[in-house]
């Protein structure tokens, strides 16, 4: 049985059209993985930066997994939302990244994209906001239907993750 510790933070996001953002995040693993402690999903606070473009969350991620195999390595999915002054929330981007598989400190920049609708929907989006969303963020992981999507590029989310691996070398894994 090998153990993996993921200890880090979601630092913040930048490059989006508006800066008052919050992020919903989650970690998805395969069947052989077991979460021993920590929360595997959450939502940050809304940050409204006064100066500059980057919204900072510093949201902690502290997970401890045990696993029987290498398949289904943990993946992180992020959804960045924008909250305007009226309190309405609008989807600003989906982002996906693998959790690094080598021990140490990693600084990851996860890029995000937003689905686009027809041109009528885009026009409406420009005025009143809203826009199409994925029915479920997990369909991305199957990977088969992704080519049907029409998207546009949004900003990027910065993460700092520290990875500690235990007993992996006992089973001959070289990370």
């Amino acid at each position: 049985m090998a153990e993996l510790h993921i200890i880090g933070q979601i630092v913040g996001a930048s490059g989006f059209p508006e800066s008052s953002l919050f992020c919903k995040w989650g970690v998805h693993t395969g069947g052989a993985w077991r979460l021993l402690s920590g929360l595997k999903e959450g939502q940050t606070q809304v940050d409204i930066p006064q100066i500059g473009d980057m919204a900072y969350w510093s949201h902690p991620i502290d997970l401890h997994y045990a696993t029987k195999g290498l398949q289904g390595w943990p993946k992180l999915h992020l959804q960045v939302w924008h909250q305007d002054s009226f309190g309405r929330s609008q989807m600003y981007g989906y982002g996906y990244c693998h959790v690094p598989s080598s021990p140490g400190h990693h600084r990851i920049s996860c890029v995000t994209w937003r689905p686009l609708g027809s041109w009528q929907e885009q026009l409406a989006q420009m005025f009143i906001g809203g826009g199409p969303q994925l029915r479920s963020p997990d369909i991305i992981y199957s990977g088969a239907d992704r080519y049907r999507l029409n998207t546009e590029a949004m900003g990027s989310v910065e993460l700092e993750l520290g990875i500690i691996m235990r007993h992996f070398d006992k089973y001959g894994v070289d990370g």
Partner: protein
Amino acid sequence: MTDCWNTDNGEAVFRTRDMVKNLRIKVRVEKVTSTAALSQHLQHQVLSQQQDGGAIELQTLTSQGHKGDNEEELVVGWQEKLFSQYEMELFENEAACQTPLERQYHLEVKALKKARGRRNRRIFTYTDHDRYTNSLPFNQLQYSSILLNTSKSWPTFLAERMTSLRQRGQDQQKIDCGVPKAKIINWEPTEEFVRNTHVVNNVMQTMHIMADLGPPEKLGQKENECLLVTIKTDGSGTVIVKPDFNKGREPYRIVTGEKKEVWRLTVENASTVMKPEQKDREQNIYRDLYTQHMDYLNSLVGQDFEMPPVGVLRYLLNGEIVSAKGFEYDNLYIHFTIELPTNWSGSPNQSLSGVTHTCRTKPMGKEDVAFFSHLFSCEASYTCDKESEGTLLQWPVLYFKVLSLDSWQRCRTEGYGYLLFPAIPGTVSALRRFFIGGSPELEDISYVRIPGTFKGERLSRFGFCSETTGNVTFNLHCMQQARSFVDANMLRKKRQRVLNQLGGFSQQGAVSSVQEAFQRARKKMQEAQENLPKDLISSTSQLQIELSSQLKTI
């Protein structure tokens, strides 16, 4: 007759795993009076005289009087409330008690009066709950005089806040993994709340041991109260004692009152030590707890781990196509395929190719960039067989092409590229520059790198026109697993451990081996000496001296 005093009044920090309620402190105050000093001196003289000569034993006369007036020794427990004369008189009067705590004191005082009376006389305590603990005058707390040499110094705003913070109690919320149910934002903070939370501080429980050092007839005056020892603890095993225990050194000096009397203070730790059997039992309990937890963890997942068969290297690649930038047109998507060379095999139910979604670019700096963040993973196994031992190991390749699709369904190839799977495990961020071959498309995408049909020694692409287009960024995390790594790692670790064990003694070992060699040589020399005739002994002894000196310098 000058006594030596201990001037080190600083606080001492102790850490303990035991509960603080087991703490016991023995405090002793003793007045330094002229008669006391004199009688001590006389006693010494008499004793020394007695030891010298065989004089008649004399009984030393000490002024018995009221011995308890000039000295007192007491063992105080943690947060044990001992009343001073002043407090006894104050709490006897029921009308003076306002808070529930004072009413409780009143009951205790009444009970004490009915019983034998209190066991302390001069020494008393202020516990954490007393209102006096907070308002001890600043000059008695002696903090300002420590820092500056002026006698009058007013505490700063921050110092005031800090002292009032130290004596206040508990407002700690332990927030573990879960989200706290209480309100996160306090919309109307009170003054006390502001004071508690705006300064970073460990909340400590405090206890002051005081003494009433007035003349014995006039006990119970508040001006004669003097702070002896302060004990502070936080909840997690830190105990701060100010001043520190004497531990056999000279006592501390207290100067009081207008008459400037001098008192000696001795502080000792009188807590009972845990018996070794109890300690062992505690250790056993902890050990059982930890092994139970480990067993529980193991039972959750199981001891086994999926291993590749013998002689097979399993290669796991977790990759992401991050972004594409610098291309001519908009609405880009990427079509990628993974090619496994000979001796490599993939698992049957995974697809070795994929298509990302179409992404409209946005300007970033001077270039237009499209974000994909498309995750893919590939697991491949390499079997090493005898035939291919001579050739170099060929790693799998990822071929991709970038295409653009616009609203009129025109599909255009924007570029081709390839990426070699990293040979060293780890995380790689790779940028790949493209090239596009005119308007016709490449029939065989492997032409991008080394065509599949290539057999010669030199690859010539003469006549092939291309132009450079944009970049595609990939993030690749690679892991390799093989049974042979297990033995190698284990061997390395075992060797390291053995080396560490040897290394620690290596110097000692060297010295002892040299000494042994010297002893052996010496013995041989002695034996040889005995067998030699006498006239040769002088020269051999000189040789021996030289030999021994040489060996000693090593």
